[in-house]
């Protein structure tokens, strides 16, 4: 297990700049995520969440998933964050901190999260041995551009889920209007 950990933490034979970029963005994301769940100001939590979402988009670009990264920026940072800020505004959160945002039993969440992290990290590190031979460098020639492949998949093998998803979105939009209507 120890050399497994070392091989993960070590720079390895892939791009050094990629690893450094990954580390910096990952650190930023983890700090921001902890602030999201620890700050007592709801508006600040939303703004820290923007940092996390932008970091996720940057990681997608590192993983050569440009289309997903652009979608992340448009959907999450654009639309979802505006929804969150409107939700905060309409529920009249106190600006400048609210002592009352946590459950009385909030401390139970810490052992639960640490235990879960232990299990997940063990599972990843245990399975990583099988990945040793796998070439996971992101700079590989995969034929047509990823965006072309994504669109081919959406209107090919994944057409039925795609149509189902459109109905789900339509139902969600109508449902949100019905729920939030004032009468």
């Amino acid at each position, binding site marked *: 297990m120890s050399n497994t950990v070392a091989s*993960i933490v070590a720079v*390895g034979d892939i791009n050094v700049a*990629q*690893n450094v970029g*990954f580390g910096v963005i990952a650190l930023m*994301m*983890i700090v921001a*995520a902890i602030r*999201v*769940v620890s700050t007592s100001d709801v508006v600040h*939590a*939303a703004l820290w*969440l923007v940092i*996390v*979402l932008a970091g*996720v988009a940057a*990681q997608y670009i590192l*993983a*050569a998933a440009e*289309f*997903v990264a652009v*979608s992340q920026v448009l959907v*999450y940072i654009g*639309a*979802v964050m505006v929804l*969150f800020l*409107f*939700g905060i505004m309409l*529920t*009249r959160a106190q600006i400048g901190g609210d002592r*009352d945002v946590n*459950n009385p039993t*909030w401390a139970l*969440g*810490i052992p*639960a*999260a640490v235990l*879960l*992290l232990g299990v*997940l*990290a063990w599972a*990843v*590190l245990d399975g*990583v041995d099988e*990945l040793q031979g*796998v*070439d*996971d460098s992101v700079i590989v020639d995969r034929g047509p551009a990823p965006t072309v492949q*994504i669109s081919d*998949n*959406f209107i090919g093998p994944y057409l039925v*889920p795609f149509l189902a*998803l459109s109905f*789900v979105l339509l139902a*969600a*939009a109508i449902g*949100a209007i019905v*729920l*939030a209507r*004032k009468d």
Partner: protein
Amino acid sequence: MLAANFLLLAAVIFCIGVYGVVARRNAVLVLMSVELILNSVNLNLVAFAVMNHTIDGQVFALFVIAIAAAEVGVGLAMVLMVYRNRHSISLDELSEMKG
């Protein structure tokens, strides 16, 4: 092992999100923690796409992004409705269905 790094980062973000869901009382903050969880899952899917040299992981990630957008819309509408009826969005006060 860039892909394994992605998986570890996603595990950390997922656990932070789980802590938020458990610890928070404000409904909007719980929804934000759910967003953290969904984003960590998306990171995993993209990492799997890198590992397997297929595009399917990215397609699944796009599906999850769309579902998450729908979930936030409906969730915030429900929070607004609860606030309008009770003038509070504290989740521990919503205990009418407790047995």
